[in-house]
């Protein structure tokens, strides 16, 4: 007996919707095994991870705060992946966005400034992220350099640049030698949605971006171009689409969204620049994009789910003394299962007896 994969003629709709759910279910089963192996009661652990973050208003608010950057980044990554551009450097684009916007906040710090500062910071963040993302895109279109490698390696460049800035030229003189900048001025801080909460206008911006992307992908010629280049590059040339221009565009959009997420995080949630600005949003967003089937609305749902695991992971650290790495393991498992389940979309597994017997 052996297992063969047969190509499906048509993918049933039920499977298209069911495959991410199956991946989530398999991740849960694996999580239970891991918790048990770590000597924790799996049921309590699952509750702490997945139920507790959604059980009260403050928990839900925290989930939204975490989901906002994930969704923003994943929207751009989904465009890249749909068109066969493997941008995995969103973490770096996120940080460069935070630095570009943060530079404006620091440059105007203490000086008389007006309401233009924040919009200019957001724009600078988006532009900074976009320009940084254009480096691997240009290397790919000009020299054929593999964008997976270049975009990934640029993450370390961005991380070390931020590290150097906050330890060196941008360090807060009154910061007791901590590697942080000054806290931004009130004009340079993203407005909160309601008093006493932590939700800022980044969340509605992310929702707006989801809506725009959903229309772009499904209704416009540009969205069609992105899908066609990914599905059949030769047919895209036959349609007269310029693959290189599209590579530059999707990298710029993805970098812009990641940069925007970066400055929203720096000027909204953290309110300063510091080395640990991102708990790996740029990498987790890769999982979000695939779990969301590279679909904008799917990215929204998947972003919320991954945010729950972030909050759950923090809860588990506090309440169960589980290391944060367990969260990383679970996120990795989730991506693994998502990709494995996608195989079911394209192929039908079948057991066959070998005929030679």
């Amino acid at each position: 007996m052996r297992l063969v994969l047969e190509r499906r003629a048509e993918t049933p709709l039920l499977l298209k919707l069911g495959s991410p759910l199956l991946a989530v279910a398999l991740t849960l089963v694996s999580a239970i095994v891991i918790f048990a192996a770590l000597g924790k009661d799996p049921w309590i652990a699952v509750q702490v991870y997945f139920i507790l973050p959604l059980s009260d208003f403050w928990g839900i608010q925290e989930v939204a705060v975490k989901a906002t950057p994930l969704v923003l980044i994943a929207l751009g990554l989904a465009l890249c992946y749909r068109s066969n551009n493997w941008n995995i450097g969103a973490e770096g684009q996120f940080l460069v966005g935070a630095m570009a916007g943060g530079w404006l906040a620091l440059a105007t710090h203490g000086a008389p400034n007006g309401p233009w500062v924040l919009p200019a910071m957001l724009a600078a963040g988006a532009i900074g992220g976009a320009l940084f993302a254009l480096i691997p895109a240009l290397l790919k279109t000009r020299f054929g350099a593999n964008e997976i490698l270049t975009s990934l390696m640029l993450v370390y460049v961005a991380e070390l640049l931020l590290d150097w800035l906050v330890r060196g030229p941008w360090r807060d003189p009154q910061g007791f030698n901590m590697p942080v900048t000054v806290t931004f001025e009130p004009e340079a801080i993203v407005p909160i949605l309601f008093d006493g909460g932590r939700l800022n206008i980044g969340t509605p911006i992310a929702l707006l971006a989801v809506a725009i992307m959903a229309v772009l992908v499904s209704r416009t010629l540009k969205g069609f171009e992105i899908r066609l280049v990914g599905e059949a590059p030769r047919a895209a040339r036959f349609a007269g689409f310029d693959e290189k221009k599209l590579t530059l565009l999707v990298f710029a959009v993805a970098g812009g969204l990641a940069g925007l997420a970066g400055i929203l995080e720096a000027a909204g949630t953290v309110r300063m620049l510091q080395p640990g600005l991102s708990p790996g949003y740029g990498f987790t967003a890769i999982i979000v994009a695939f779990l969301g089937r590279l679909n904008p609305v799917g990215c929204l749902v998947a972003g919320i789910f991954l945010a729950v695991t972030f909050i759950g992971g923090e809860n588990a650290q506090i309440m169960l003394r589980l290391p944060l790495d367990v969260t990383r393991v679970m996120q990795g498992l989730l991506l693994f299962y998502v990709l494995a389940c996608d195989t079911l979309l394209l192929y039908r597994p079948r057991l066959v007896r070998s005929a030679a017997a």
Partner: protein
Amino acid sequence: MAAPLIQTQQIVKRFGALVANDHVDLTVAEAEVHALLGENGAGKSTLVKMLYGLLQPDSGRILWRGEPLALAGPRAARHVGIGMVFQHFSLFDALTVAENVALGLDGQEPLPRIAERLAEVSRAYGLPLDPRREVWQLSVGERQRIEIVRCLMQDPKLLILDEPTSVLTPQEAESLFETLERIRAEGRAVLYISHKLEEVRRICAAATILRHGKVVAHCDPRAESAASLARMMVGAEVGSVRHDIAAPGGPVRLQVSALSLPPAEAHGTALKSVSLGVHRGEILGIAGVAGNGQDELFAALSGERRAPHAGAIALDGVAVGHEDINARRRRGAAFVPEERLGHAAAPRLSLSENALVAGHAANGFVAKGFVDRAKTLGWVDAVTKAFDVRKGPRDPEARALSGGNLQKFIVGREILRKPDVLVVAQPTWGVDAGAAQLIRQALVDLAKGGAAVVVISQDLDELLEIADRMAVIFHGRLSAARPVPGLTREALGLLMGGSGFPAEESAAA
């Protein structure tokens, strides 16, 4: 009577819901050239892949000299004495002939001995080959010889040839037939897969005809007419295309002047000073063996690759060499590439989206950047109706259609635009006879309506049927176009083999 050499009994092979072979019986005697006839998709390749151990039957038996035979793989098949030459060669371009043969042999022979034996076998069968040449330097016909010699070196009792003449010039085919006769005279059997009826009637003493996976007849092709064989193969009378040769002398709608283009990839073909002119109401056929620059010519005509100077290509007198494919479409040109899936159409996108592939620039499907879905769907309906595209749902994925129906869709997608100039490559490649007839008639009718049509094809019969004038492409050069009436296959075959082209060309190859 002695047991036949090989026999299949009630062989069944399924792929998912498709029954590719449905209780097939086939009997090949020793020293017999046996034809396996059928249209594309009739199940011929599936059957021989089982005989060569590449596929396993779901049920039924294979008998070898009366004994049941189980083939775990090609190596086992070669071991009992079955050799096969595939339609698509499995050769390494960068290796020599001898090295390629060595890789295909199962034993541990040293290379010099293989080269020696190779030279011997190729002499004995009239298949001239130089063991030291590298494969990329060889013509398609020579490459096929390598595959045949490689099989013969293993002393097979049965040699299976899958559509061997589809890549050959008429003259090359002729010498292949002589080789086959020699092989048969030695007592070896040949299973000859083809859908070319005339050659089957010439060289085969027995035939098995498949249709939709089932055996519809066993017969002696020499006792049949080509028409009766075709009827059995297709299951219906195939109409012929109505075509009156166009009166020459309308205005030139497509003009190509001294177009040269370096190859796009390493082993591609450069176009060398290609010139042609197609008049209003005329079909120009471009014949040639595959790989002589057809792909490059199509890319240059369509604008997928720009010409080095604008004047190299003109549509209705306007220089368009520097324009991209969509600009040319807006000027009334339309294009049908050779590859259906992946080039003309995206397999996993729906037909309405595939309508957009070729029509987004010139068909009014897009307003202010937004796609008008009602219009693209309406276009699918119109093409479906006009070209009899058979499909289940209204708007399925392209890959869900059969080859013939998808081809009708992608040709119809362009013809329905009523283009002034149409360039089409391999319009009926791998398409059933009914669909092929419909497509050819549509091309003829389009030209009659005043368009200029270029048909690039390797199918000489097709070109002779529909073209008004024909040119031959060889090593990136295009011969002068000649009127089809009075053109002989022999003359075309010589051009396809390179004679008649400037001498430095064949020396440079």
